[in-house]
């Protein structure tokens, strides 16, 4: 029984479905996963709590939710860590993979796979070519202190508000822009009210599939192996899938007359560096950070 909060055809859900298909294939249908999408059986925090309490077998949640329980993983959510999804993919499959599994196990989780949640850009009412163009703009962010802090560091006026209110807020000018993934920008028709899209790629987010470690250990040996293999393979497939999704989408936006620009991110990178020291609080976070970036 696996729960997630995304809609059925989202990029994250595709990863979980691939995991299920691969698992069935590898175990000749002996083991399978019953998927409950759309937050049907709980929101993200509830899903992780459910994994701990044993009310959910497996959960696919954003890395930021999981890092409330596994502190080390907070490192993955820092801005401008990876310039694109292929480099994220390389980092996740490198030596960091073992470290992340160790951290997860330290909190009683088994990490099955790390998927891409897309890369986040800027939607605004004017072009953002350098960090200076962002000065004093009201930018909607998620209600996360790190996001608010980052945009303050970039010179903007960060305005946290509920996602469901964003369209209206852009339309009425309550905010001048927002950060978000290309797929959301397109699907929610934000381009109607903010027709400039700047590919800053400030966050390169991951979504994690976890089980309770004791529950995982109780599975038959061959299913454990199949599950971990399926996790790795489905994650590799899914990250590539995300990359392939992105290109035609950007073309489609350009065809609609949206101004899509590739800005100079050096200013953003420089402004992000001092933030890292604030986020990295423990030695094990430092170790994971080094493993991801080297």
């Amino acid at each position, binding site marked *: 029984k696996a729960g997630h909060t995304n809609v059925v055809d989202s990029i994250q859900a595709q990863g979980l479905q691939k995991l299920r298909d691969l698992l069935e294939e590898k175990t000749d249908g002996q083991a399978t996963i019953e998927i409950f999408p759309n937050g049907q059986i709980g929101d993200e*925090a509830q899903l992780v*709590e459910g994994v*701990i*309490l044993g009310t959910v077998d497996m959960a696919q949640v954003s890395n930021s939710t999981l890092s*409330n*329980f596994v502190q080390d993983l907070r490192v993955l959510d820092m801005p401008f860590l990876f310039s694109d999804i292929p480099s994220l993919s390389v980092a996740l499959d490198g030596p960091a993979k073992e470290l992340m599994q160790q951290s997860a196990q330290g909190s009683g989780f088994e990490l099955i796979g790390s998927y891409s949640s897309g890369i986040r850009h800027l939607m605004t009412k004017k072009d953002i070519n350098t960090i200076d163009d962002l000065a004093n703009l009201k930018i909607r962010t998620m*209600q*996360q*202190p790190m996001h*608010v802090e980052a945009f303050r560091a970039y010179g903007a*006026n*960060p*305005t*946290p*508000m*509920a996602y469901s209110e964003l369209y209206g807020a852009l339309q009425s000018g*309550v905010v001048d822009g927002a950060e978000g993934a290309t797929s959301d920008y397109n699907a929610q028709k934000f381009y109607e009210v903010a027709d400039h899209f700047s590919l800053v790629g400030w966050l390169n987010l991951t979504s994690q599939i976890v089980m309770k470690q004791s529950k995982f250990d109780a599975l038959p040996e061959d299913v454990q192996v199949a599950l971990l293999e399926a996790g790795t393979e489905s994650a590799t497939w899914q990250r590539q899938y995300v990359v392939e999704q992105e290109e035609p989408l950007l073309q489609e936006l350009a065809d609609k007359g949206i101004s899509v620009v590739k800005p100079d991110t050096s200013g953003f990178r420089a402004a992000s560096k001092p933030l890292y020291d604030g986020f990295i609080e423990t030695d094990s976070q430092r170790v994971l950070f080094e493993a991801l970036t080297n």
Partner: protein
Amino acid sequence: MIRICSRVLTFIRTIVNMSAVLLITLMMALIFAQILGRYVFNFSIAWSEEMATFAQVWLVMLGAGIAMRRGQHVGIDMMILYFPMWAQRLVKVAAFALVVWFLGVVIVGSTGLIAIGYIVKSTALQVPMAAVYYALPIGMSYFLLEFAIATLPQIFGSQSSDTEAAT
């Protein structure tokens, strides 16, 4: 003995009432501050929504008992009036036992959440989630108390019992 009990009860009810008034006022102030912040001072408070939502959790958990005391929980009790007296009493005893079981499960189950809540901090305020999860056992215990006070006289006492409506 009865005098002490009724004093303790009055004390508990006063505390709960005062908390309820404070919580709704706090929620109002937080959301108003958020609006003012956005339109007047051009500055956003990242934690106002989260704190107001936590206040709402406490408000509802404590308010459930208040609603019980004031007879504000709706139910359909006219069907069992067609039953003979002994059957009515039997149904009421069974219903009472089931509700006690349900609230007991919530109270016991919340200990697991609270244990997690000491590890996990809230997104914006960075307070331990246990501060919110404690609303469950405390609120539901008060709910159980008011439920028992409202229901037990109907089961054991005279037939015409009424819940206290005034506060």
